[in-house]
């Protein structure tokens, strides 16, 4: 399946990537090319098999409910680009037109 420009724009928005015009054109061609190879999968008969999301037979791994020291908030917050006290500072969320 080939990908059109509209799809690239839509996916870029979903992925939160502000791509340039040139990148969008390139990705349209490259993704179409890659998907052409990937479509080989459709040949495989998968009618009799379940999906494998994960190779381990694990279900709902629970941790013991025991208090233990957590990472120092100061250390964690040091990596934030913008900080105010014990909070990460972000731009206004509700103003956004999206």
């Amino acid at each position: 399946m080939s990908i059109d420009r509209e799809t690239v724009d839509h996916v870029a928005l979903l992925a939160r990537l502000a791509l340039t015009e040139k990148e969008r054109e390139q990705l349209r061609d490259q993704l179409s090319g890659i998907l052409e190879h990937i479509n080989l999968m459709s040949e495989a008969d998968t009618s009799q098999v379940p999906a494998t999301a994960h190779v381990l037979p694990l279900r709902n791994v629970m941790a013991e409910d025991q208090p233990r020291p957590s990472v120092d908030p100061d250390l964690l917050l040091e990596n934030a680009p913008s900080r105010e006290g014990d909070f990460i500072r972000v731009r206004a969320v509700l103003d956004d037109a999206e």
Partner: protein
Amino acid sequence: MADLWQITVSEAAELLRRREISAVELTRAHLDRIEQVEGSVRAFVTVTDTEALRQAERVDELRRENAELGPLAGIPLALKDVLCTRGIRTTCSSRILEHFIPPYDATVVKRLRAAHTVTLGKTNMDEFAMGSSTENSAFFPTRNPWDLERVPGGSSGGSAAAVAAGEAMASLGSDTGGSVRQPGALTNTVALKPTYGRVSRFGLIAFASSLDQIGPFTRSARDAALMMQAIAGYDPLDSTSLDAPVPDYLAALTGDIKGLRVGVPQEYMVEGVQPGVRAVIERAIKTLESLGAEVGECSLPHTKYGIAAYYIIAPAECSANLARYDGVKYTTSTRDLSGGIVEMMSKTRAEGFGAEVKRRIMLGTYALSSGYYDAYYLKAEKVRTLIKQDFDRAFERFDVLLGPTTPDVAFKFGAKTADPYAMYLNDVFTIPANLAGIAGLSMPGGFSEGLPVGVHLIGPALGEATLLRVADAFEQATDYHTQSPQIAVKKGRKR
């Protein structure tokens, strides 16, 4: 005697134990070697020399106090820059994490610290472990010590090159589709991808969580066994960690492979395999037969769908994992503040990610988006089941499977950057083991046109001990693993 940077971990451990050398001497020898060749190889993003010498001094002190020390105490190692190291910058070779200082250690790092190893630094990689050449590093490409005009493989190219060049005695990488085994093959190192869940992923910066696994690079199977002994085991901090006993890997190295059943998948000896590589594999088969192994042909009929399934599953998981880099939490944020929060996030990500990472995020987001999920993601997960069943059937008849790690030897810079799919084909033989969650090892098997060729051994889940036993037996009958590259020495880079 050989220089200290040339010997193996096992040899160094013995010298340290007998106090013939000190950990400081051993560490200095490696820091000097880094100084000497790093200008040519460029394996490291960060060299932590001061910290390394401090750790080495501490080991020497402990030894003077007659403390109980394991075989890795004082051994200088390198860590792929995808592993979180407390207080030491961890970049994933990406602009978006260029200034990230992890507040905690990955579990493997914690375990190595507990074993008193010495950390020399953090190694270069393809950005976020996406690539097969280390050309996708946002900082610089790493060069193959065997030929500086060729790639070392990837994504763990820095970790592989460091060990091959004698800049570190051993290193850790991560393998999502071949990122340990492929660079191992291209640099003549022993490279192991353990069973999914065998080694904790806590603190490994996530690429594709159902496929990622940490593994060692070494210059012998014995050294790989020592590394595995230190890093394998259950970790409550990783919910996908396997709660299974860890065997004595050293004890498994009996040198005896009589009666071992080795299967050669016909799909791994196809036309695309370069003749020089094929010759090495055929010779390796003869060597194993001469050691008493019983070799037979087998089939993994769904191999040809492996890359296709992988390039849906891995990008899908990566698109979710990399959503966290939004300009809010991780150091780097756009300076362009003209729009709202969605613009801020989109610009930060566009500026912070390289071309391959963007490509995979786009591919994964597309595959998971409404209307395409069944055709791509669900289909890929069903193909994954078929591939797993291929292996289940093969392991009913064979103990290990053998083939080439890669179809070709190391390629030149730029040879595969124009066509993303050509680059993806490097991993055709390594991807299936990740999809099935089983163990794989690449060992030095010989040379083609002066460049290393890796022999790929695949084992069932928790088959690491068997793979190490085969590799060790093979090493006793051959000397390929002892060959090291001649590196033209340039002026070292400033540290």
